[in-house]
């Protein structure tokens, strides 16, 4: 489909044009050095050139905290809250986060369809944006270049003086109606290089991980790990949760809440009766990495990590998933080569 030129000076007007049609969620500065997706109030607050957001746009489809039920203990009744399609534009999403949503779609359609997630997902239009990889990104190694437009309706390729705006779907073209733009005739600038790499394809990682099940790397990394769970909570393809009932102070009504949880947390592996089924931090670290490169990947043939680098960038202990995987690759090659 068509490619247009959106000069920098017109970006705010473009965002306002999107706002006139739908709610727009986009990256904003949060705190001093962080970024987070938030509903756009003023187009000039949107940041399109950012390294990564704290959480991905997953939080809109699978909220960090979500009420599943409200109940009344006096009348003995309960009700599910209404869940509606978001019908919104997600602006300024990096390619890896779009891929992460597509992976969650797969997870939530398969088996028992996840009603709330799938309902909210309906009508979401995605405007992707290219990025310059920093020292943590490695999505190129898992098949997701910075300029990958998969899953997007529109895509903003950064170029001299602004963006090459690519229309990819009829939904995306619809968003442009009434906002005339000149065609972008020039080609796209060469993609900036990644600084982190996993050099082997998923087909080989399958064997590498099987071989590394008893590797010493799990214990070595566990010694540095506080089991804080941050790496899970920030991961755009993690979807584990816990469910808790809360009763209000009148003891007449309450609600059932679902919130994100993660496999690195000891309490996550604690079940009824106090049994902890994955007691060792090393086993939990292995489980996380296998969830990203083995278990679901063996079924789908794809890595379930999108290379966003969040887990590594946010780990206060500096534990790097790329280093872990590469260490396993080296160990494998040393034995099998």
């Amino acid at each position, binding site marked *: 489909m068509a490619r247009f030129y959106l000069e920098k000076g017109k970006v705010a007007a473009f965002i306002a044009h999107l706002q006139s049609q739908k709610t727009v969620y986009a990256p904003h500065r*949060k*705190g*001093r*050095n*962080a970024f*987070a997706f938030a509903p756009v109030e003023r187009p000039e607050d949107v940041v399109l050139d950012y390294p990564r957001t*704290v*959480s991905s746009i997953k*939080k809109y489809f699978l909220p*960090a*905290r979500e009420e599943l039920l409200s109940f009344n203990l006096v009348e003995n009744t309960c009700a599910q809250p209404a869940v509606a399609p978001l019908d919104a534009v997600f602006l300024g999403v990096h390619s890896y986060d779009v891929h992460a949503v597509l992976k969650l779609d797969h997870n939530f359609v398969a088996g028992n369809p996840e009603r709330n997630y799938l309902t909210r997902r309906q009508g979401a239009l995605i405007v992707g944006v290219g990025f310059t990889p920093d020292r943590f990104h490695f999505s190129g190694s898992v098949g997701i270049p910075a300029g990958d437009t998969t899953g997007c309706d529109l895509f903003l390729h950064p170029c001299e003086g602004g963006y090459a705006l690519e229309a990819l779907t009829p939904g995306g073209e619809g968003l442009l109606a009434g906002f005339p733009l000149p065609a972008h005739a020039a080609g796209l600038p060469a993609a900036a290089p990644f600084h982190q790499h996993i050099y082997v394809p998923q087909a080989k990682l399958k064997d590498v991980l099987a071989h590394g099940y008893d590797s010493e790397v799990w214990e070595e990394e566990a*010694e*540095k*790990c*506080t*089991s*804080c*769970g*941050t790496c899970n*909570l*920030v991961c755009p393809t993690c979807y584990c949760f816990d469910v*808790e009932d*809360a*009763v*209000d*102070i*009148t*003891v007449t009504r309450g609600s059932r809440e679902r*919130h*994100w*949880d*993660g496999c690195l*947390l*000891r*309490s*996550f592996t*604690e079940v009824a009766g106090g049994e902890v089924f994955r007691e060792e*931090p090393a086993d939990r670290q292995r489980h996380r990495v296998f969830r990203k490169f083995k278990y679901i990947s063996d079924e789908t043939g794809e890595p379930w990590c999108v290379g966003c680098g969040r887990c590594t960038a*946010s780990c*206060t*202990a*500096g534990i790097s998933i790329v280093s872990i995987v590469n260490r396993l690759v080296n160990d494998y090659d040393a034995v099998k080569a």
Partner: protein
Amino acid sequence: MANKPRVGIFDFTGCEGCELNQLNFEDQLLDILEHVEIVEWREAMDGRSEELDIAFVEGALSTPDCIKRIHEIRRKTKVLVALGACAVQGGINALKNIRPIEQVREEVYGQDKYLFPTLPALPLSAVVKVDVNVRGCPMTQLEFLKVFTALVMGKAPIEPGNSVCTECKLKDNECVYEKGMICLGPVTRAGCDAQCPTFGQYCTGCRGLVPEPNVEAMQEILVAHGLSMDDARKKLQLFNANQLEGVS
């Protein structure tokens, strides 16, 4: 409710910042009182009771008299609830435990030290069985309300075991390490909704350590972010001097 639980409220060594009347419960206090009958409360009423369904106890144990009283309370109480960091971990008081007790006594009371017997500051759980903890300095109101409603309903409250980091991430916060600060969130027990990092402060660990904390890893993180090993230890000791020594 036909039989309201009989409740006693007690205090030991602490700043009394956790006591119910000190906390900003506003409208909720009336709802709370609706569900229980308060039969013993030094702050607000005379008299003692022989039997209690629930005892809320704040403060650390730091004198021989404290030990005697906590045994008395335990004997007559069905459910004993420790309120706040002092009662749960020994709190800030426990900082005195890291130095010889005689030296501490001398510094505080000088030549009158023989009039004031003192012991290392202990959490209630070091002396009697504690059924429920409400953590925090001052205690986390959110957790108090959860524990309270569970007890009124006759259910066992669930004690959070996750880290403060999890709650911080649920709120999409910027990690304070990104701003060059340090934080004890990775090894501190959740339940406060990560209130300090949410307001741009760091977590000092007031809610105590998570179960099976990797203290060495936390120290390494603090050192990697510029603290000396000694300062790292001191940061961790502020609210957890007892736990670090294996007392809990």
